[in-house]
């Protein structure tokens, strides 16, 4: 085990796979010589050279197009879209091309690629650089959606995403880049589509993702001091979705709270709430409660942003109120 930051785990995950497979290539804006605007790809250019680690123009459609065509013809590209908000600029490539090609061609076209992107709020960057858009991706058939909450998962899930034969949208959380954690040395590959249960309790279950995971864990600790024991599930991957774990952990406690950074409407919480309600209705002691960002663009100043995204306090209060 090594102590790595979340950002270092990104570079390590990519490096592990680039060493293994010469056909893994990496492109994006300022990812090479500069090591990325979040410094998450430092060292890759030096190790793998300009043929495999490539600085592109500001051309998000060309970046994803090039990645797609390369994936169709033998390479394993990793493309960075600097901020997940910018996926909107090249959304056509994601949803209409990359996600649909295999299906539309009856399996002829294969698109094994990874799109990495910095997702989420907390950096005071304002509404165009802070969104959590993993729900957008979940709504699109044909693309896998992964969002790790800690350095070890970053390395293991990124490696799995690169090895996956299908396109994967990999959401790194920009407010976690500085987070430190234990990461296995040597080859580390996880399986996509497995949630992880971080803590177990009898009273309620929380399902969270990415930056909401440490907050959920913290909330659980506070609740424990008040005599409420909650299970915390880190979803890790929205597609494929580990409904087995989510349903099992919900049934055990009879109560489910989802904690998501998505704005209120049509977030992934609504999907999980709907699945759980449909499939475990008679096992629920109370309705599923979604804790979300309100349905507003994200404001930029510290106090406003902090009050908008779900906080530890809000999680605790919401659970207390509903368990009271």
């Amino acid at each position, binding site marked *: 085990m090594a102590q790595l930051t979340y950002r270092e785990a990104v570079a390590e995950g990519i490096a592990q796979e680039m060493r293994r497979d010469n056909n893994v*290539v990496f492109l994006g804006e300022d990812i090479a010589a500069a090591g990325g605007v979040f410094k998450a790809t430092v060292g890759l250019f030096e190790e793998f050279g300009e*043929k495999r680690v490539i600085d*592109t*123009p500001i*051309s*998000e*459609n*060309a970046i*994803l*197009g*090039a*990645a*797609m*065509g*390369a*994936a*169709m*013809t*033998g*390479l394993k*590209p990793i493309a960075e879209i600097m901020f997940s908000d910018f996926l909107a600029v090249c959304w*056509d*490539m994601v949803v*209409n*091309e990359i996600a649909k*090609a*295999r*299906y*539309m*061609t*009856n*399996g*002829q*076209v*294969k698109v*094994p690629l990874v799109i990495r992107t910095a997702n989420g709020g907390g950096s005071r960057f304002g509404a165009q650089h802070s969104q959590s858009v993993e729900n957008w991706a979940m709504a699109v*058939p*044909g693309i896998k959606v992964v969002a790790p909450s800690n350095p070890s998962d970053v390395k293991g899930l990124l490696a799995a995403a690169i090895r*996956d*034969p*299908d396109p994967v949208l990999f959401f790194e959380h920009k407010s976690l880049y500085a987070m430190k954690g234990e990461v296995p040395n040597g080859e580390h590959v996880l399986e996509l*589509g497995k949630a992880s249960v971080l803590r177990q309790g009898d009273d309620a279950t929380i399902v969270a993702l990415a930056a909401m995971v440490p907050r959920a864990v913290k909330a659980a600790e506070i609740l424990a001091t008040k005599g409420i024991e909650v299970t915390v599930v880190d979803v890790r991957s929205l*597609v*494929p*979705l*580990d*409904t*087995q774990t989510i349903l099992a952990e919900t049934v055990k406690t009879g109560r489910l709270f989802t904690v998501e950074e998505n704005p209120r409407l049509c977030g992934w919480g609504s999907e999980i709430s709907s*699945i759980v309600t449909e499939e475990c209705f008679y096992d629920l002691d109370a309705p599923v409660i979604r804790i979300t960002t309100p349905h507003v663009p994200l404001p930029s100043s510290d106090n406003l942003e902090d009050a908008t995204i779900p906080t530890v306090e809000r999680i605790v209060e919401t659970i207390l109120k509903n368990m009271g």
Partner: protein
Amino acid sequence: MSENMGNKVSLELYRTQLLARYFEQRASDLFLENLVKGTNHLALGQEAVAAGFGVAMNKSDYTYCTYRGHTHTLVRGAPVAPMLGELMGRECGILGGKGGSMHLTSVEHGAMGSYAIIGAQLCIALGSAWSAQYLGTDQVTTVFFGDGTTNIGTFHEALNMAAVWKLPVVFVCENNLYMEYTPIGKVTAVEHPGADRASAYGLDSIIVDGNDADAVYHAAQDAYARARAGDGPSLIECKTYRHQGHSRADPGKYRPKEEVEAWFARDPISMYRLRMMENGFTDEDLTEMETEIQNTIDEATEVAKLSPVPSLDIIDKDVWADGGSAWRN
């Protein structure tokens, strides 16, 4: 056929144009018979472009085309019955009936797909050019698109990146003078929507007569030589004209009669036939070839007609590499 057939390339160009022409005519007929559903964008009148490039390229090369992509897929060698079957939504379809007319693809023939959202394929084409460059193969990528497509952002991004990376890719703008129903001049800042933009990417301005298969073929050869030599992309504007409306729904009434007549008088296939005869082919030779190709189309039509509709099972197939569509465990 007689011995004096001469030039193999001419023969191939004529044959390829005929195949394209007869296929499109059949697609049109089947549409009128209501055997082809949805929509249908025919390249009748534009066959010389697909043929010229198709004949000039290598079998291992890659191509990308549009919703108007029947002929571009055919010229790569995609088999006729599955192509017609796809238009008809049959089980034998080249996409199993899942894609339809706008998405014809035959990866085994290097036909990497037909793309129905304007401009996307120009960016995707960068990728196979990049992989060929990376892997050190000599494969060149050709990407077809219309005049109207030169005004969308992806055109610009693709051309710039191709030039910067010196990719082996040839951008073929088929200028048929219309973006759907709108004359291209009404929505474009320059006279030649492709050629007048080439310099913005450090490329030569190239215009060819897109109704002359030989001219297209030679331009293609030059571009391929350049690409294979590592000298990067080319942008070639081919002036041509479609014989029908934009798609099934369009009678094409917005086009001036004289314009239509002038272009029909320059029908690529009639012109090429005349040239073949000037070059010593006999009417008999050519008629024989024509009959043969027409027969191919007829036989394929029968095969496709006999094919059943797809099994509903395939709805849940091939979203993922494991063959299925499961998004949960």
